[in-house]
């Protein structure tokens, strides 16, 4: 009986295939998926094939010209690369991975993209729908595993759903506050033929309101407060970049004469050498912005979320100031810091409204105060970091020479740890979308794959990845991706032979009890050579600048391992649990 049914089924399928030849609209779910991606303007996909996503890869075989697929060495590499791509291009990053382990390998990247608001669409294969819940081979409950780390996710078990769901996925990923979306497609839906009626982009989901109407009342109230302010201070985050509002932001701060400091993800939204750019906030940010947060009378937060690394101790954070918070995500307003006025909206819209409502001013005295603090920071920290007198190289001087050679035009991708803080503190940025780092999640291993993706997202630009000796070993397999794709990125390993940031904390707070921070490295030059990547190791100051120049001149990827001082610390520092004004210079 069952066998008979099966034969009938097969016959039905044959009939379906035959009729599909007559009907050109009849395509497989896989083809519909790829057509949908193309309709969304996707040109690059980062992925790794496997059993449950084979029909999609089979369809991809015929789309070689329209879709560039980058074969990574691990799914985590794929998703970080897609993040780098999204951050350098401003477009949605797309990832393909198979079911089970393929999907679970995406989790770190999803969490990273979720907390850093990076628009991604991840497609995972899934076992046949009739096998769901049977502990089938490479089956995992991807939807439930990824729910806390996605903006939205959905499981497709019928090909007819594909065009509409993919349209929703792209719309949700990039609209409002962006984020990662995961679509799980069961194998039967990938194979299933259906009548593909074409692709319509989604621009409205009734339960989803990414773009609020800006209420003039709040703009007016904010402008009034700003106009009355004696010591106004702007702190801005990635929202300015995500909202593509760099020009609007510049107009705003220039009209108001407002000193502005960025969060780590806000870096590069405002050119480093703009006179109103007073530096970076946060635990290892600049001295002035941290101290003066507790001295300003009006704090204007734009597209940032008051992370604990920015605020330090909350009950001592900017208590004296009236706080205005511009954000597109209403759940951010009042979440960590109680605000005087919350302006809910897209800063691309709210900033021009605010600019036209504020008076033209120059807070010369107040801005000078930031420069006074900067001088103090230069004298006690920065000068020595950039111009060391000992033989040991410092991370800071590497970045100083890099600035000189790239002139601040490169995209700088950093991993997580001391090198990240030093690079973000000293790197020069002339244009937006030039700083790519794992901010919220602090994912070691992020930089190498993200740099690869960043290059695909902005092929005309130089991409420099600065990575520690810990982080590089977490995703070092992506050398293989560099080798196979021939992508041109410059990799600087700042090797201090320690897991430096943890070691710094152990030195400062755990009586120098160095517990498992002493990490050994392979011979990176040899490893790179094995992957046919040009490489060099630098140990002395005399060869540093030339080697950096050589790296930048090299056609194709290049790895430069630089040995730096083993026990250097990053300062200034706001110790955990302290107020921002208790920032330490040593």
């Amino acid at each position, binding site marked *: 009986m069952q066998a008979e049914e099966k034969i009938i089924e097969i016959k039905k399928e044959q009939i379906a295939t035959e009729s599909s030849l007559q009907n050109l609209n009849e395509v497989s779910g896989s083809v519909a998926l790829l057509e949908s991606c193309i309709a969304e303007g996707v040109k690059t996909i980062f992925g790794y094939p496997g059993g449950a996503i084979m029909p999609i890869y089979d369809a991809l075989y015929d789309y070689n010209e329209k879709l560039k697929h980058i074969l990574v060495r691990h799914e985590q590499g794929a998703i970080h690369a897609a993040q780098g791509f999204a951050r350098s291009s401003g477009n949605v990053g797309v990832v393909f991975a198979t079911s089970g382990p393929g999907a679970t390998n995406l989790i770190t990247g999803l969490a990273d993209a979720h907390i850093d608001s990076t628009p991604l669409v991840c497609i995972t294969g899934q076992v046949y729908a009739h096998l769901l819940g049977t502990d089938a081979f490479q089956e995992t409950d991807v939807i439930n595993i990824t729910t806390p780390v996605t903006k939205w996710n959905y499981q497709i078990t019928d090909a007819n759903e594909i065009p509409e769901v993919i349209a929703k996925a792209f719309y949700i990923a990039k609209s409002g506050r962006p984020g990662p979306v995961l679509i799980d497609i069961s194998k039967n839906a990938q194979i299933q033929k259906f009548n593909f009626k074409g692709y319509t982009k989604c*621009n409205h989901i009734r339960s989803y309101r990414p773009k609020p109407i800006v209420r003039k*009342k*709040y703009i007016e109230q904010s402008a009034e407060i700003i106009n009355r302010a004696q010591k106004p201070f702007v702190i801005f985050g990635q929202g300015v970049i995500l909202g593509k509002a760099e020009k609007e932001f510049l107009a705003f701060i220039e009209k108001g004469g407002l000193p502005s400091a960025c969060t780590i993800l806000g870096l590069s939204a405002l050119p480093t050498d703009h006179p109103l750019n007073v530096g970076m906030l946060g635990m290892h940010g600049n001295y002035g912005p941290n101290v003066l947060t507790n001295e300003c009378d009006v704090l204007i937060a734009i597209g940032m979320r008051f992370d604990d690394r920015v605020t330090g101790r909350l009950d001592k954070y900017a208590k004296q100031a009236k706080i205005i918070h511009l954000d597109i995500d209403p759940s951010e307003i*009042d979440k960590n810091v109680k605000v005087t006025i919350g302006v809910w909206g897209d800063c691309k819209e709210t900033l021009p409204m605010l600019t036209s409502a504020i008076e033209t001013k120059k807070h010369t005295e107040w801005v000078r105060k930031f420069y006074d603090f900067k001088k103090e920071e230069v004298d006690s920290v920065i000068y020595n970091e950039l111009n060391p007198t000992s033989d040991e190289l410092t991370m800071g001087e590497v970045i100083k020479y890099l600035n000189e050679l790239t002139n601040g035009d490169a995209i700088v991708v950093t991993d997580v740890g001391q090198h990240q803080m030093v690079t973000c503190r000293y790197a020069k940025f002339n244009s937006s979308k030039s700083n790519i780092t794992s901010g919220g999640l602090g994912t070691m291993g992020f930089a190498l794959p993200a740099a690869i993706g960043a290059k695909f997202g902005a092929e005309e630009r130089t991409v420099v990845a600065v990575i520690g000796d810990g982080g590089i070993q977490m995703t070092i397999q992506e050398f293989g991706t560099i080798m196979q794709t021939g992508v041109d990125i410059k990799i600087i390993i700042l090797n201090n032979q320690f897991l430096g940031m943890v070691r710094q904390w152990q030195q400062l707070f755990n009586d120098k009890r160095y517990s498992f921070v002493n990490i050994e490295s392979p011979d990176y030059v040899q490893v790179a050579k094995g992957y046919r990547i040009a490489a060099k190791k630098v140990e002395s100051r005399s060869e540093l600048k030339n080697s950096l120049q050589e790296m930048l001149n090299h056609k194709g990827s290049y790895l430069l391992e630089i040995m730096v001082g083993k026990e250097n610390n990053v300062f200034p520092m706001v110790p955990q649990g302290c107020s921002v004004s208790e920032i330490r210079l040593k």
Partner: protein
Amino acid sequence: MSKLEYTITVYTENQIGLLNRIAIIFSRRKINVISLNTSSSEVENVHRFTIVIHETEEVVRKLCRQIEKQVEVLSAYFNTEDEIVWQELAMYKVSTDVIAEKVKVERLLREYGARAVVIRKDYTVFETTGHREEIDKLTKVLEPLGLIEFVRSARVAIIKASEGFHQRLKEFEKTDPSETPIENEFLDKQDEVFTM
């Protein structure tokens, strides 16, 4: 701020997985959900969650914002107990012999608003609806008789001041951004407005 019992009402699309998305907003913050009910609402195809938690108003407000942030959630409201009309339902299975012998059934039915749903030779099922304290009273009477089974439902609640979701849904269905569903009014009168 002191903790109170808050009833959260969430209007949502009917979507698989949304229950989990909402549940983890609580579990991630280690907040205990006292009761949770999902049902249809006054509007066709719109689902209604009723969630009871014991928390401070600030926490509840933040939770509601996180809930509303979910793509398939239309609106989330929170109310204190005096702002709602609410009911819970309980059912008791007891031995008919014991009941017949020891309890004045008539008094039970009158005094506690209980109803007998099933009466069989071997067992009787009583049912009552009301606030938790009312149900607790009946439980106290029946417990000594040996409950074969006892079950109590989640809370369902009507918001006294609500005009229902019909009008609001129409606003949501407009493609242009419109004022009504976007309640950032809360920003300047936080103590009066109960939605986010």
